[in-house]
């Protein structure tokens, strides 16, 4: 558990701390300014934009100074803006969340020009107001839904194979909502897969990790197609699935469809070798 989690989690996971759902967090002007800046800036969704500068460096010294700049910038961010959450934690969050609404996905709009689905589930009182001021990002509108509907929707997304991630507001621990997405379209998952664990200042792995019962696996390969993080591969020699626990983000998608119940979610803290790998 990181320092930020200990400060804002009250001994639990930060997303189960009821304080972070309070509207009081939006009284701070700086927080509201940060949200406005986020909505104004379309290029924020285009990934890290200064590649060109990095690629045109002339010497090793220049590269080292740029690398130090990047490290410094990341260090000053509030850590882990989003985190992967498995279905049981999703249900816990929906139990304590305030108004819930669904809207279209920003990443999919800018990456695949697709408005067909509404996979973003916003929770909490604060963020919805600011979304409504930028109807570009909420084309098709914001639909308020009940708790039961939200649970049903999230279950449907899980069945479909979307990873659920939970996000907070950029400059405060105030919660923002769920994102249900898949690998190439989702900005967070795309960069997570391209950059690996280095990217955990933005998206963190879940508090859980999967553990496989290797003998029970029958090699049906259903889990291989469900993994959005590239952590599972099929071994033709053993005729079983092999899970890379270092890459596993603990979303639980593979567990939910395993016909043999050969995959279990265990708390990340219990596995010493990957306890610190976020």
């Amino acid at each position, binding site marked *: 558990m990181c320092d930020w989690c200990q400060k804002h989690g009250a001994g639990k996971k930060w997303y189960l701390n009821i304080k972070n759902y309070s509207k009081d967090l939006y009284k701070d002007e700086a927080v509201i300014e940060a949200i406005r800046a986020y909505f*104004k800036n*379309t*290029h924020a*969704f*285009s*990934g890290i*934009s200064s*590649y*060109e500068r*990095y*690629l045109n*460096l002339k*010497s*090793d010294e220049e*590269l*080292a100074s740029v*690398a130090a700049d990047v490290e410094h910038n990341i260090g000053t961010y509030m850590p882990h803006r989003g985190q992967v959450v498995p279905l049981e934690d999703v249900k816990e969050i929906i139990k304590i969340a305030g108004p819930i609404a669904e809207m279209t996905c920003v990443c999919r*709009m*800018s*990456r*695949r*020009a*697709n408005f067909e689905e509404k996979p973003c589930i916003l929770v909490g009182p604060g963020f919805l107001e600011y979304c409504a*001021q*930028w*109807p*570009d990002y909420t*084309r098709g509108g914001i639909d308020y839904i009940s708790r039961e509907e939200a649970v049903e929707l999230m279950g449907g997304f899980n069945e479909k194979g979307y990873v659920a991630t939970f996000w907070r507001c950029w400059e405060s621990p105030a919660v923002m909502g769920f994102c249900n997405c898949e690998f*190439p*379209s989702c900005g967070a998952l*795309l960069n997570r897969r*391209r*950059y*690996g664990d*280095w990217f955990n200042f933005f998206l963190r792995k879940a508090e859980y990790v999967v553990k496989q019962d290797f003998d029970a696996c029958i090699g049906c390969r259903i889990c291989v197609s469900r993994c959005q993080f590239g952590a599972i591969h099929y071994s033709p020699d053993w005729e079983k699935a092999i899970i890379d626990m270092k890459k596993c983000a603990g979303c639980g998608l593979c567990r939910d469809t395993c016909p043999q119940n050969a995959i279990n979610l265990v708390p990340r803290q219990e596995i010493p070798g990957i306890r610190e790998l976020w």
Partner: protein
Amino acid sequence: MGAHLRQLDIPEYTVKVQVDEEKCLGPFECGACLKNCPAVVFSAYSRNRTEGEISYDWGVEANRDVFCWRCDVCLEVCPEKAITISEISKE
């Protein structure tokens, strides 16, 4: 220098992908490059946005072109031939 870039998985050779704004039909009207590019090089962006209004002036840009691996799918699918790919040589 290569070692640092390899840590971040950024390839050292690079290509420049350019979208001709004059010819491009727009991401929501066409969007063929956005949907077909396997490296997710292209993204839609709004040229100017105002609070409380829907912007209809969106363009396509190739801002992640360091990840382009030259499969040339975009050149095939673009109906207006608005995309050009050029290689930048590194010395």
